[in-house]
């Protein structure tokens, strides 16, 4: 289990993460979503020990990683920017990592390399970007970690390899009961495999809940009336994205859905439709702070 408690990280005067907390349980794949520059990579690097936070703690299985960095022998960080030695092959990198990860298993390494169809004797710098990511994934999983941090690791993978990687991670998680924290800006990707999602919005986490719960945590109402109506009738409902198109009204609600439905019913609409929001819709709703007037942008 990875537990992040009140982490704050600043770069000179800029605060990248402000008092952030999250928890990744064993046998769990935790998705970290956010726009570019939201702080996902900063958080992962802080957990991995690449950055030293200004305050806060990171624990793995109850052990503070900053005070006991040897615990990181059971954690593997796959960064967005991969590093391989100039003339290294997968085999030489495997030997390299074997020195630093006590559980590194050469059998697993060979099997995974075979699964991905990678030549372990060939120079990694000669691989394509996607193949390099696969190589790093193979090396990472070969360390048999109890926790894995993946930063945009599906970037550059073809659909087949993406599916293969997902399947491997799911199987590994189930088999080893490990904690996987994966960051991406691709919601669809994460929705398929994560059981928990956190949306990072700037310095902190805006939404943090199980995928199943998220689907049911918000919904969109579409209502039809006989006459044009005023939005005041929905007083008591915390709604967003209110749109009125004649007698048809729509808005989203993220809290107290049943209470909201009751209030709506009291307004006697001709039609009530309730739709769950997709992750993308939820994401967009959270990320959008302003309505852009694109008409005036180029005039």
């Amino acid at each position, binding site marked *: 289990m990875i537990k992040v408690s009140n982490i704050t990280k600043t770069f000179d005067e800029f605060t990248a993460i402000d008092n952030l907390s999250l928890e990744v349980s064993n046998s769990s794949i935790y998705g970290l979503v956010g726009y570019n520059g939201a702080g996902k990579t900063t958080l992962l*690097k802080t957990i991995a020990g690449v950055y030293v936070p200004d305050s806060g703690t990171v624990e793995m299985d109850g052990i503070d990683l900053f005070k006991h*960095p040897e*615990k990181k022998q059971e954690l593997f*960080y796959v960064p967005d920017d991969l*590093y391989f030695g100039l003339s290294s092959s997968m085999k030489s990198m495997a030997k390299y990592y074997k020195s630093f990860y006590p559980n590194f298993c050469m059998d697993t390494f060979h099997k995974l390399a075979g699964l991905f169809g990678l030549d372990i004797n060939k120079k990694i710098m000669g691989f394509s970007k996607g193949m390099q990511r696969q190589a790093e994934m193979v090396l990472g999983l070969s360390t048999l970690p109890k926790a894995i941090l993946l930063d945009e690791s599906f970037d550059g993978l073809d659909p087949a390899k993406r599916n293969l990687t997902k399947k491997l991670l799911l199987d590994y998680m189930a088999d080893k009961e490990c904690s996987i924290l994966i960051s991406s800006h691709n919601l669809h990707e994460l929705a398929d495999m994560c059981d928990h999602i956190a949306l990072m919005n700037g310095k902190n986490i805006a939404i943090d809940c199980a995928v199943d719960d998220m689907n049911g945590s918000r919904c969109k109402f579409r209502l039809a009336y006989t006459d044009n109506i005023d939005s005041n009738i929905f007083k008591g409902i915390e709604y967003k994205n209110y749109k009125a198109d004649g007698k048809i009204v729509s808005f989203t609600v993220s809290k107290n859905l049943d209470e909201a439905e009751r209030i709506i019913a009291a307004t006697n609409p001709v039609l009530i439709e309730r739709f769950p929001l997709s992750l993308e819709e939820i994401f967009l709703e959270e990320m959008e702070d302003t309505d852009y007037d694109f008409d005036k942008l180029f005039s």
Partner: protein
Amino acid sequence: MTLTSFSRKQFQGLFLQSLKASVWIPLFLFAEKIFNTFSHSANDFSINEIGFFWNWEFSVLIPDLGPFLTIPLGALTALILFNFTWSKKQSNVIFSFGMTRTEIYFAKVLAGLVPFVGLMILAAGLEVFACAAVGYKITARYLIGALFIFLKTIMPFILSFCISSAVMSNAGSLIEGSIFSIMTAFSSVALKTFFMKLFDRYTLGAGALGFHEKTTPEWNWSTPFLDNSTVIFDTYYDLGEAAPYFSIYSTEKISLYDWSGIITAIVYSVIAIVLGSIAFNKRRNEITGTFGRARGLNEICAVIAGIALFPFFNTSFYYGEGTVGEFIVCVLLFCVAYLVFKLIFGHKRRQELVKSLKRLPFYACGLTAAFLIFYFGALGYSSYIPPVSEIELVTVQSPMLAYLDDPIAAKADFGLKEQNIRDKIALERMEDYSLYERLFGSVYNGTYDYLDEYEYTTDYIYAAVTAVFSDTDEINQAIDIHRSIIADGHISGTEKDACGTSFVIKYQLKDGTEIIRSYFRTTEETAKKMLSLNNTTGLDNNMNRYFGSYYSADDRNDYLYESFSENVNKSSNVSYSECLLFPTDMSRGFDIGIISEEFFHILMSDILEQSADEHYHHTAEDEIGILAFNLSTAHGYFSEENLKLSETLGAGYATTSWNLNATDTKAIVVTKDMKNTIRYLQDNNLLQYFEKSRTADDISHVKLATMGELYGKKLKHLNIPVFYGAYSIRQTQAEVHYFEKIEEKTENKAEIQALLDKAVVFGYCSNDSQIMEITYNDGVVATMMIPAS
């Protein structure tokens, strides 16, 4: 296997991985040493007359550049091992390992040091083996010498590596790491120069000691890259033909001071590693790959830049005591250097400059505090006088003791007995004294010091004329003057009663230690007190040494050569060859040839009898004439040809004209009290050559001015308040520029004669005395002095 036990394996893994990347450097150095060992041992088998231990002269593969090779290679090793800190990709991997930062740091450091030291030990062992194989006895003495050379060879690499590791592992980029490593490496030199300049220029009593070769050994704390040992490894020539190149077999000992460079290097290396490790633990990886974001290093190097520039300008163009104004300028220059550094090396330059401006007042205060400490006595240094009970001897040197004058640099044509004298006027020579001071950084008493010419610096305690006191009363007399100087405090050169005389006093204590203090300037009152030292036996005894024994022409050649390499006091002890007689109007000179032993001793006895008053405060009537003595050659090399020529012709010879002031000539003004000398000259019909031939009728006009009116601000550079008259032909009058600004002149013959009647050619020149420039009808110029009443 537990996580903790696996950490050892991780450490080992990182160590070995790192070692592979950089081991080619120690292997290269090892190969070079081995190759040289085999080369010169093969040579030695055939010649079998030389000993060695890593003798650079035998380098065959490449010239063994010593520290010029090992220092950059040490830095390169650090660069290779710590380049991961500048790469975000590598940092992601290495900092996410399950290792503490301390473990990462030391794994890298050991990877740099262990193979190098190990291979060098192996190479050293092979060298010793080779030495034994060619037949040399491996004694304990040899092994100590070998250990010394071994450490001297490896420490520059180690120190360079340690400093570079500490800096590069905490820098943001290669350029930053390289530049900051060099600056940090030289920080000790910058600091030493900074404090040395403050001490030398602002501490009363430090004088120009800093510029002089130390007679006592000094701990090498500022240049540990370079060994400053004075030990034993003499050249072939010194040890004779059959001697080994390295006198490892000599009886000289390697002193602790010789080891000091090595010890300092070890200490600095340890400090660098420890500080580097602490900083590495706190390293912000966000500086990775970015120039100028390593804030701590940036600040340290900016201060080093300022401190390095400070003494460069603080030396200014003058030696001697610094002024408060100069210090203020230097503080401003420090600020400029600091800000320029920040401008070039700072990240987010505008913000950084604003922050730096806020820090500057603190640095300025720090510099000022250091200045004040030195200016107000350096915590007791300036005011310290050892108790009389602890004093064995006191040596004093001052122009005020300059018994022998040097008014005239005689230029004479070969073959002439009577000669026209051409010379620069006394005032210009006075500036020349100051010029000499600048050139050689030491203070002269007006006589020529051969050593300065060749060794560039000298301990001027051993300059030609000093007084050595062992008598308690005379010691107290010297101490009284010293106290008076201390009480005078800092004196500006433009103060009305300032006297540009230097004073150096050395206390030799009973426990063997020495305390030296030197001063550039005193008050007139103190300067007059110094004159009383002329009446002491301490000076008289030294005068004996100064004149010394009478040497025959045959002895002189060997003696002069000897004097360079032995006790420098002996250089004073040189006899004179040609003796020239001049009247006090300096109109002509007569060469009487090499003086006899009898005359020599007569002259000596009169000089020793003469009191300070008779010497410095006589009147025009007291002056009879001038005796000038030319040494055989300008530079102490007495060629046979010159000796032969002077003996045969009894003539003078050309002295080198580059000697602007103190020349080979030593002269004495013969005064009425010197009765024995006068009698000798009379008996030998030589007094006639003291007869003056010039009167007021031969004079076109005279000008009068005080030293202050002539020298103005340059008065502060004068170091002797003693006047020497001179005589010069018209064409050198271009050099007589001081009087150009004096417009008033006297042409009235009666007035001129009245002045001539009061004028002296030598004497104590107070600030109220007047210098008289005499322009003769034929254009020749002379100078004399009208003493203050």
